[in-house]
Every structure is written in structure tokens, then in C-alpha cells.
């Protein structure tokens, strides 16, 4: 039984081996049906989404019954029903429920590691988190209620984009994320062409600044990064980073941010997630620095002719890493705000951002080029963060 959910889902053959998230809609049995194949699938439920990301599987099941309070079941010893969520709880890293506004029913989702899967994208050897078997899975964040009286229970984590409507700033953040991805995708050929040259003015080779980040994400780390909306942020460096280069010379700035924010924080998944997104930040700055000479000045939109120094790139990494780390901390706090060490870490990120804010205009002028400037300006909260979106710009930029 313990392996039934991943095995059953694997049989559907709906995964993609790509590291990029892919969504599929397959009409089939619900969690109960998937979990216990011996049952007749009389409930008109369906698996509506199966999404694989590295060693992580995200499954959603639709139930047409109106979304209401979930009451803990207390099945008898021989009962064949009412154990679905207990099994989900046992197998999955995180799960939750939400109403389906479009169809009027309810969606239950779960996020679990794929047994036996390896972090192929990262290719960094065995990861103990990936040898998951029943009984030694990473500890679930929430536990099933055991109260004798029915109690409301809604799981432990609902992806933010699927619950309360996003704020305008959150939507702009999503647009900015997409803008950076678009620019990378557009310029991957040029990035690869640059791999044997020096980054103009820095004395650092391009291959070095786009070295693949060294940190190996665990399944729990990836789940937190995914919930923070930063999967692409870490996937693309893992996919396009150079494996033949040593550690990026910009990585130390990212590590400084990790060290600054997390004293006293003991949650390994959170520490890992902050380290991974910070390291990815160094990669993004390095990648855009490598193609900087092909870009335009952020205000004049004329081709850049000057160079950028290594210190400036370190400054940029510090800002961007601070912003992405803050997003991870915010996600963690929205899930569980009780840990004072995490709250203090978030306060460090906020106040460090306030301290940095007056230095940003000078940094942007030194960076000069539009892609690097946008990367920095959209990464942390400051007065100029989403100025272009506030002015009515959708997502497009001159490319």
C-alpha cells in the first residue's frame, strides 16, 4: 500500500523527464481510487493535474461535491473506506484542499517525492532524501487530527496562486519572473557562444560566472521553492549552468546573504531553500552579465559600450539573492509563523533591504544594461521595484 500512489501514478505514464514543469489532465479515479486499486471507482472524481518537477510529484484530484469542512474520519479496523487522506498524509510531503471556483467542487492536492528518482537535472550524486520509503519519508508538516469530535481540517499548504487572489504586487512579481525567463530563453545561443571569452571588464570567464550552482536541493527544499514560485529560478541554472566550471566567483555574495539572514534558523529545508535560491541568484546575474555587451542601456536604450566591474556584480548578486531569499522566508511564514527565528530572519531581510535601498540608484547606473537593471530592480521591495508595471506596461520589454 505504501508505494501504491506513486506506482499507480507512474503507470499513467504522464511524466515528462524534462526538468520543466509540465501539466497534464487525465480523467481518472480520485485519490481513493489511485490509492487502492481494488476499489470500484464509483465516485466521479478525477485526477486533473499530475506535474513532475525533478524528484517531486504534484497531484491534484477533483471532487464534484461542494467544498466544505473536511472532517477527520475514524474508520474501524476492517473498514475499507475513509483512509485516503491518512495514506496521503503518510506518503506526501505536503497536501491541502481548496474550493474549485470554476466547477463548484473541491480540489485536493498532494506533493510527494518520487521514490527512486534521482536529481538528474543536478547530477550531484546520491541524495539521501530521495531514497524515500514508507516509514522514513520526510516528516509531514501537519498531522491528521485524532480528536474524537469532528474538527475542520484543510491540509497543510495550498499553493499561493491557487488560494487567495494575488495582490497586484504579487502579480507584477510573476510578470517580472517571466520577463527574466524570456530574456534568458531568447539569449541562450549567445550565452553559449560566449563561454570561452572573458566577461567584459571583470576578468572572469563566462563559463565561471554561469557555473552550475553547487547546492543539491532536497525534495523538501524543492517543495518550499516551488511554493514560493521560484522553481524556474533554480531549474534554469541547474539546466543551463556549466558543469565543467568550478564554483562561480559570484557565489560568495550569495553565500553572504545566506549567512546574514539565517542565524538561529534550524529548519534544514528552509536553510536549504534559501541557499539554493541565493546561489541561483548569482547564476542569473552571471548569465546576464555574460551577455551584457549585447544589450542596451536601461534608460537611453542605446547599445552599451562600457564594462561592468566584478564588485558591481557582487553588489547585484547581494540584492537579488536578498530578494529571492525574502520570498522563500515569506512563503515559510505564511505556512507557519510561529517560529521566532524565522520571523527574525524575515526582519533581517526586510531591514537589510531598507538599508540597501538608497544605494540602488548608483548600482543601477553602474550596471547600466537593461536586463541586469531589471533583474535587480524587480528583486527586492523598494520604491522603484515595479515602476514600469505601475505605469501600465504588461510584461514586454525591448528585446
Amino acid at each position, binding site marked *: 500500500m505504501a508505494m501504491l500512489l506513486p506506482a499507480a501514478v507512474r503507470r499513467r505514464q504522464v511524466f515528462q523527464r524534462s526538468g520543466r514543469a509540465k501539466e497534464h489532465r487525465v480523467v481518472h479515479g480520485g485519490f481513493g481510487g489511485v490509492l487502492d486499486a481494488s476499489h470500484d471507482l464509483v465516485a466521479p472524481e478525477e485526477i486533473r493535474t499530475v506535474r513532475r518537477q525533478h524528484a517531486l510529484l504534484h497531484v491534484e484530484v477533483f471532487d464534484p461535491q461542494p467544498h466544505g469542512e473536511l472532517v477527520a474520519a475514524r474508520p474501524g479496523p476492517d473498514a475499507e473506506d475513509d483512509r485516503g487522506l491518512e495514506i496521503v498524509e503518510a506518503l506526501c510531503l505536503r497536501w491541502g484542499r481548496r474550493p474549485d471556483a470554476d466547477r463548484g467542487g473541491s480540489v485536493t492536492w498532494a506533493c510527494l517525492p518520487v521514490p527512486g528518482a534521482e536529481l538528474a537535472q543536478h547530477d550531484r550524486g546520491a541524495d539521501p532524501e530521495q531514497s524515500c520509503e514508507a516509514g522514513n519519508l520526510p516528516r509531514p508538516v501537519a498531522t491528521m487530527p485524532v480528536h474524537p469530535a469532528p474538527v475542520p481540517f484543510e491540509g497543510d499548504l495550498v499553493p499561493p496562486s491557487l488560494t487567495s487572489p494575488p495582490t497586484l504586487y504579487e502579480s507584477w512579481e510573476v510578470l517580472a519572473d517571466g520577463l527574466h525567463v524570456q530574456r534568458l530563453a531568447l539569449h541562450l545561443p549567445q550565452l553559449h557562444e560566449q563561454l570561452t571569452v572573458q566577461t567584459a571588464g571583470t576578468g572572469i570567464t563566462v563559463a565561471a560566472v554561469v557555473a552550475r550552482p553547487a547546492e543539491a536541493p532536497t525534495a523538501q527544499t524543492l517543495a518550499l521553492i516551488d511554493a514560493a514560485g521560484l522553481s524556474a529560478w533554480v531549474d534554469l541554472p541547474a539546466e543551463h549552468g556549466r558543469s565543467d566550471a568550478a564554483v562561480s566567483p559570484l557565489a560568495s555574495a550569495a553565500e553572504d546573504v545566506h549567512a546574514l539572514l539565517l542565524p538561529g534558523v534550524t529548519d534544514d529545508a528552509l536553510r536549504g531553500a534559501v541557499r539554493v535560491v541565493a546561489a541561483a541568484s548569482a547564476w542569473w546575474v552571471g548569465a546576464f552579465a555574460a551577455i551584457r555587451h549585447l544589450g542596451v542601456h536601461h534608460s537611453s536604450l542605446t547599445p552599451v559600450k562600457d564594462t561592468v566591474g566584478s564588485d558591481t556584480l557582487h553588489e547585484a548578486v547581494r540584492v537579488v539573492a536578498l530578494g529571492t531569499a525574502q520570498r522563500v522566508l515569506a512563503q515559510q511564514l505564511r505556512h507557519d509563523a510561529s517560529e521566532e527565528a524565522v520571523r527574525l530572519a*524575515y*526582519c533581517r531581510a*526586510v531591514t537589510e533591504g531598507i538599508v540597501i535601498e538608497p544605494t540602488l540608484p548608483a548600482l543601477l547606473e553602474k550596471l547600466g544594461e537593461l536586463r541586469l537593471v531589471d533583474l535587480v530592480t524587480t528583486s527586492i521591495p523598494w520604491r522603484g521595484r515595479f515602476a514600469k508595471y505601475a505605469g501600465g506596461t504588461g510584461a514586454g520589454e525591448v528585446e
Partner: protein
Amino acid sequence: MQNARNPFIVVEGLDGTGKTTLRKGLFRLFEGLYRVTPLAVLTTNFLDASVAADLVEGKYQPSADNRYRYLAAIAADKQATATRLIAPSLPARPVIADRWLLSELAFFAVKHDRSPKETYPHLAEHLDVIPDLTLVLDISPEAAMERAAARSGDATRPDWDVLDIQARVREVYQTVTDEAAAYPALGPVVRIDAANDRATVLHTAWQALDQRGLFPELSE
């Protein structure tokens, strides 16, 4: 920590204690984590144009001749701020004021030798909006002045930004906050040790607000 409406929060303290940093920090906490964007206001917002000249003269050229006009102008401006900005905003968003009543009480005590208890009724009489929490950043005047001097861009006033004046201002803060019950329009008052680092100050303020249920429910 569910609250029925958004809070009105006041940040007070000497120049250099970190009021701006705390205000921005709370702003970003509300916006970035709790998904509600606060409105930040100042202690004087010039919303009653008829008293604008009195506000300027009374602040920068305080004298026995203009002190009552200044006091009346401050009261009028605060009423206008409360009526036009704070009260209408609270159903939708928190409001954070950078200084409010406490600073005015200190100004009249130091510059016009009027006790806070004399000044208070003039300011509070027609003020319907009471802060849910007044956070007072406390630090020695020496340390505050040292910090303020390290900042660039701040205008300094020789009749105000000097040690003996700032020491007296701090004494007024302490006197008033020690008997906050006599000044109900300040709302609950919490003093925070501003000698701590910025993150710890923000964290302490966060805890103080949280303990009073002044944050909305966190949602994922």
C-alpha cells in the same frame, strides 16, 4: 490573530532612533507578508490649507505670540488627517503615522514650557481616531544624535537638534509614557529599545502588534 479591522499604528522617538526604518519595515511586513498595503502618514500633513502658514511659522519660528495659533493649527491638521485619511483608510488598510501626539506634547513642553497635561486636551478634544498602538523607540539622546548626524540629507535645526533639547524631549516621552493612562488618545504605548539592531527592533514591534491581534490572518 484575527482582527476585525486594520490597525492605526504610530511610531514615535527622537531623530535618529530609527522611526523611518521601523515605519518602512512595518510597511513591508504588512505588504509583503500579510498582503495588505498600509497608508503611511506624517504627524503633519497640511490637509487644512487655512492653517498651513501657522504650521510653518509655529514649527520653525516658535514664539509666545504664535504658540496658541500653532497648537490650534496642529489640532486642525490632525483632525483633517483623521477625517480625510485615517478613518476612511482603516476599513481597507492599516495606517502608520510617523509621529503623532507624543511628539507634539514634547514640542510644547520643551519650546513653550507647557506641561503635556496642559497641551493634551487641545489636541485630543476633537480627535476621534485613537491609535491601536503607539510604538516609542527609546535610545539615549547622545546615541540618537550620533545616528542622525551620520545620515545625509536631513536638515538640522540649531534650536532643536542639540543635546540638551533632545534630552528634554526624551524626558517628556518617558514622563508621558509612564502615565499613558492619562493620555488615552495615545492608545496603548509600547517602548522599544532602539539600541538594538534594526531587525531586532522590527521583530519586537512585530511581536507587540501580534500580541494585540493587530495583524490580519496570514494566508497562503
